[in-house]
């Protein structure tokens, strides 16, 4: 039943865990200062010298930044990933959480940045006129990088059967409750996302099909690569 509800690229190949909600890491911009047509749509674009001093990004201790770089390594190779991250390091002001990145963009301290989409959802919920918008990255190619919140059953679980039923519920009828509170996208394709993000960000975007287990395995390489690129 879980295999029917959750697409295979969002689950563990060995069925040890299943993705339940999705966190897209994409490019955001100041809607007052920029035209959407001028917003870069590739992660690599932000490494171009023209963006020097105009980008806000997350520090290398953060797991989302690590997984994004790991996906670059998996898809573009070591050398290209190093070039991109070095460019980011030269261009970007590196901050310590996604909300501060969004607020810095809203305050005009940077023009563009990379954040998880639901932080912007939360900001727009508090203030519909928050002057930051989102573009889906890499739509002409592999699609936007996505992280997963998921669940599995531990080996020594005291109640494996109830745990399985709970997981199944979370993957189906429970999806709405899961995503309504946190603005994440449901992993079950037959469940619509909550209205705010459906309206603001849409549902029609391509996500990078790279398996979480693949970029997860490259996480250590990503940390080392950021060290080498001088990316704080």
């Amino acid at each position, binding site marked *: 039943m879980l295999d029917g509800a959750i697409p295979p690229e969002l689950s563990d190949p060995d069925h040890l865990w299943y993705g339940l909600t999705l966190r897209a890491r994409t490019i955001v911009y100041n809607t007052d200062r920029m035209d959407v047509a001028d917003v870069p749509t590739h992660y690599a674009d932000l490494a171009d010298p023209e963006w020097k001093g105009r980008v806000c990004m997350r520090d*290398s201790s953060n797991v989302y930044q690590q997984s994004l770089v790991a996906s670059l390594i998996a898809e573009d190779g070591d050398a290209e990933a190093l070039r991109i991250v070095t460019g980011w390091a030269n261009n970007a002001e590196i901050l310590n959480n996604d*909300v501060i990145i969004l607020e810095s963009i809203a305050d005009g*301290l940077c023009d563009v940045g990379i954040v998880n989409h639901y*932080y912007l959802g939360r900001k727009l919920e508090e203030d519909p006129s928050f002057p930051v918008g989102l573009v889906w990255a890499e739509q002409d190619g592999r699609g936007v990088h996505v992280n997963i919140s998921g669940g599995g059953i531990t080996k020594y679980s005291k109640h494996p059967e109830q745990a399985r039923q709970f997981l199944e519920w979370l993957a189906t009828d429970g999806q709405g409750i899961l995503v309504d509170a946190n603005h994440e996208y449901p992993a079950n394709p037959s469940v619509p996302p909550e209205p705010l993000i459906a309206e603001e960000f849409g549902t029609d975007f391509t996500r990078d099909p790279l398996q979480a287990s693949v970029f997860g395995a490259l*996480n*250590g390489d990503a*940390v080392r690569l950021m060290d080498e690129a001088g990316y*704080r």
Partner: protein
Amino acid sequence: MTSTSWRPSSTWGWSASAIVAATLVVVPVGMLATSVLSPSRDVWAQQWSTRLPGELVTTAVLLVGVAVGSIVLGAGLAWLVSAYRFPGSGTFGWMLILPFAMPSYILGFLTLSTLGRTGPVQDAWRSAFGQDAWFPAVESLGGAIVAFTLVLYPYVYLLTRAALRDQAAGAYQAARTLGAGPSEAARRVVLPLVRPAIAAGGAVVMMETLTDFATVQYFGVDTVSVGVFRIWRGTYDRDAASEIATLVLAFALMAIGMERVARGRAKFGQSGGAASGLDRRVLTGWRAVLATSTCAGIVLGAFVGPVIQLSVWAIREQTGNRGTPLLDQYPGYLWHSVQLVVVTVVICTLVAFVVANARRFGGRRTTQLASRAIAVGYAVPGPVVGIGVLLATVAVDRALGRIGLGLPGFVATGSLLVLVYAYTVRFLAPGLSAVESGVGQVPEEMTASARTLGAPPIETARRVHVPLARASLFTAAVLVGVDALKELPIVLLLRPFGFDTLPVWVYNLASESRYEQAALPALSIIVVALLPVYLLSRRLEGSPR
């Protein structure tokens, strides 16, 4: 008077207790430390050519900056309120302890949310003076040093005030009677007498700074501890992370070394008559204004202002339309925190008293070594203690299993025990340091008299040392309790599934800039930490003058 005149047969039990306590503290740390003997050469080379040199410099500057700041502020304020009268001086005497209740990670996120780059102050600044108007970088090493200093100076302040009252007052009056001017008496008589207290305070402050990893992250300050975390969690290379963590240990040993040097051979006891406190000179005119406004500024900036801001947020959050579903979990978080604190305080105070007495009754060199070994636990960053304790208990688990006493996964997963063990490793040192200074102030002649009159060590400890060192036992309990309540990294690492404490809640919310929701648990930590601070201030102020 030497220990040889006491019955030697009675001493080994005390020495053994001290050694057992020290061993329990040192083994987890040792298991980590020995990891460096088989180094992950590639990781060291890679780190050395990238982040490590910068992290070492940053850590050193941070430690020295916070220590100097706390000593200047803590000792200066202690002298100000002990030696002078000015409007509000009596009130400030206890109010200046208040920041003790403020964990650095709470003042840290408050600083960033108000003074940080996207906070209201800089927003207003930019709209007044233009988008590119200069403003001091708050998210910086300097910002972190100021924030740490504002919450850590009370350690120096408390120890210095106690020393001034108990040890320096009589000597100061004697010096004045013999014709020394006030500043000469302060410089030549008081300063040397309180130097050990200042040095001890400075060492504690450095260790507190060294163990932090949340506040420095808020300020974007990359210390070695942050580096260890990045390697541990980012690359899963636990061997390399433990090896790099030995550098943090090296910093801690340096801090201890600096304290020993600063303290020198000084060892003071006061016998004959209760200390009567300093005669306070009355400040008038601009001096009084300056003294009052300095104290008021510190108390406002480090405590009252932040508490008001948190209260506003907490009220807005409870009355806002979002509601706080997290509130339902509040009693659970609170109960977890209380459990941990109470158990840790009881264990640490008891063990500290035994070890402090062992230094009187046991072999001197052995017990001194044990007490220094215990100090290491406090200097090792919480997460590293956590990892070490995990290594040690898993080893015990396996050993028990091998001899057929194993309960599957008992230690590793039933880890409330492990959590308490780790807390004890971490917080025995401040408790011991307080109890030792109390027992150490009992004149050796008094111990010797009791023993000569036939009282066995236990009775001497109970009937002579406990009453005379009662204040220090109390101080120990308070220091341990507040530290345990604020503790974050260990509980993040070792908590049993679902065992979230108030600091974990605060950290999770503040890391995502959900300041309004973090306000209630943050206030709760501060309020609970205020209770011991209140008792401590009464003890400090209410003693006979």
